[in-house]
């Protein structure tokens, strides 16, 4: 039995030991939130309802329920599950965007995210300007992101001259390439990708996979949410299957994908493996 080194971490319940070889530790995580289910989310509607003594119709969503998960450094974890399973909420909670309702998440390392296509690019600005903005949003200083800009531009591999043109002139593939390039070239310790591997053509996809393999070799941690199950089996060393906010299974990607497909009652068809 091997024992890993630990460091002391301050939490709300006091100091705890945290293994240094762990990238992410999720303890009894629950995330709930309320959403307004009224068709008209307007002040006028709220006032009209209040005048009639009615309340705004809210629904409580239990996106994640009592989830425990350890992700060691150097892992590539794939998360599969149907729509509404809580995959994106889980990614956002690891990134610190959506704090827990219960439980705790401990993250050890610098996070880079690609959780929403477009990442907030300003369509009127050039790709180059958006790269600078993207880096600053990710927490880099202007000097740091300026130093990395050429590397990011090279990786994105846009046709000649496009990088200085407004992003609104880009095709969706070019848009996705720049966004992906920003995320993977931030030298992250932990990379979170939500449906981000479909950007670009076959050649860019190959380049993306190679870059992620490089990151794995450097023992960086990658967490991928993908409906393209082939991607999960090709890239990941562990997979988890989420359903309605609960972890149904965790294990070898092939085994998890098989279980998930059996649950969905679909076979390993090209359509199911590439895009579900």
């Amino acid at each position, binding site marked *: 039995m091997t024992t*890993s*080194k630990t*460091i*002391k*971490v*301050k*939490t*709300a319940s006091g100091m705890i030991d*945290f293994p*240094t*070889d762990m*990238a992410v530790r999720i303890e009894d995580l629950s995330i709930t*939130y309320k*959403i*307004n289910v009224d068709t008209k*989310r*307007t*002040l006028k509607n709220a006032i009209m309802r209040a005048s009639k003594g009615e309340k705004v119709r809210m629904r409580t969503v239990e996106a994640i329920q009592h989830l425990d998960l350890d992700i060691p*450094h*150097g892992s590539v974890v794939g998360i599969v599950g149907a729509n509404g399973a809580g995959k994106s909420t889980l990614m*956002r909670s690891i*990134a*610190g*965007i*959506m*704090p*827990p*309702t*219960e439980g*705790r*998440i*401990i*993250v*050890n*390392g*610098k*996070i880079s*995210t*690609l*959780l*929403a*296509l477009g*990442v*907030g*690019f*300003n369509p*009127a*600005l050039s790709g180059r*300007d958006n790269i600078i*903005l993207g880096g*600053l*949003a*990710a927490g880099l*200083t*202007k000097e740091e992101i300026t130093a990395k800009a050429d590397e990011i531009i090279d990786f994105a591999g846009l046709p000649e001259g496009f990088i200085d043109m*407004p992003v609104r002139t880009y095709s969706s593939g070019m848009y996705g390439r720049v966004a992906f390039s920003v995320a993977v070239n931030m030298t992250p*310790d932990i990379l979170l990708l939500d449906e981000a591997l479909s950007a670009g053509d076959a050649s860019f996809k190959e380049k993306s996979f190679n870059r992620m393999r490089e990151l794995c070799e450097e*023992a*960086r*941690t990658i967490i991928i949410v993908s409906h393209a199950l082939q991607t999960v089996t090709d890239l990941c060393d562990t997979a988890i299957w989420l359903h309605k906010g609960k972890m149904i299974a965790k294990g070898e990607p092939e085994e998890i994908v098989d279980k998930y497909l059996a649950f969905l009652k679909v076979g390993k068809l090209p359509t199911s493996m590439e895009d579900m």
Partner: protein
Amino acid sequence: MSEEQKSSAPGEAPTPGFVPRIQVFEPHRASLPPLGSYLREFWKRRSFALELARFGDKAEYLESNFGKVWLILNPLLLAMVYYLLVAVLRGGAKSATGLTTLAHILIGLFTFYFAQNVINNGAASITAGGRLILNQAFPRTLLVLSSSISSFWQFLPTMPVYIVVVVIGKYFYPKTKLPLFNLSYVWIPLIIILLAITSFGLALIFATMNVYFRDTSKLLAYTTRIWLYASPVLWLPSMVHGWQRSAIFINPLGPALAATSNVWIEGKAPTHAEIIMMFVWALIALCAGGYFFISRERDFAVRI
């Protein structure tokens, strides 16, 4: 925001040059994140707000033929319209008094527009920054700050425009008592800072409301118009007396606008009441806006 902790403990070095950087995400107490780390993160990332404002301005005026000229042209033309309504129809437009009225409307509108832009642009900043909010963890107050910075940059060039108008006016009406370049100008930075803080606090409130109720920004367009008429912009503070003066002080922007008029039009320092009320409104707006916004930040990612 999480409590970020650094440790010098030798880790298992998962990556070359890896420094353990621990972030702990736990449920917020009383809906608020740990305020110390939130404010530290806010300060650390201030350059992001600055650059976002700079790039936002660049994008906004890239495709406009007149570009930033509109920033001055818009309030200038509006001032002319109000001047026609207030001075010309009332008579005495072509006089030294007419020049004072024009100067008061001009500086009042420029200053009010600054506050209005901070509030309106700030109110829309969260819903407009949707994808950024869904993709990155950072204090969302930075988005409102960014739009406030942008509004300040838009306000700055209006000051020289006012001075040019007054210089030209004084040439044609040398008997005017309208002051220019005097000691009371030292109050201008304080007035602008306190007005900016008040407007920023109000922007935080309206930005939060806009996430929950998407017609808030539309409603603001009408609210600020009424607000303008209720503020000492089209009327001089010296025109109201007794209990009517309370209209200036119960208006969060009122004391700063009255002080602006005192400094630019009367050439006097703001009154004690104006100074005290400017501080009071800045404190109330910042605390109430800050609490309302930060306590609801968690919801933004699911309501955008």
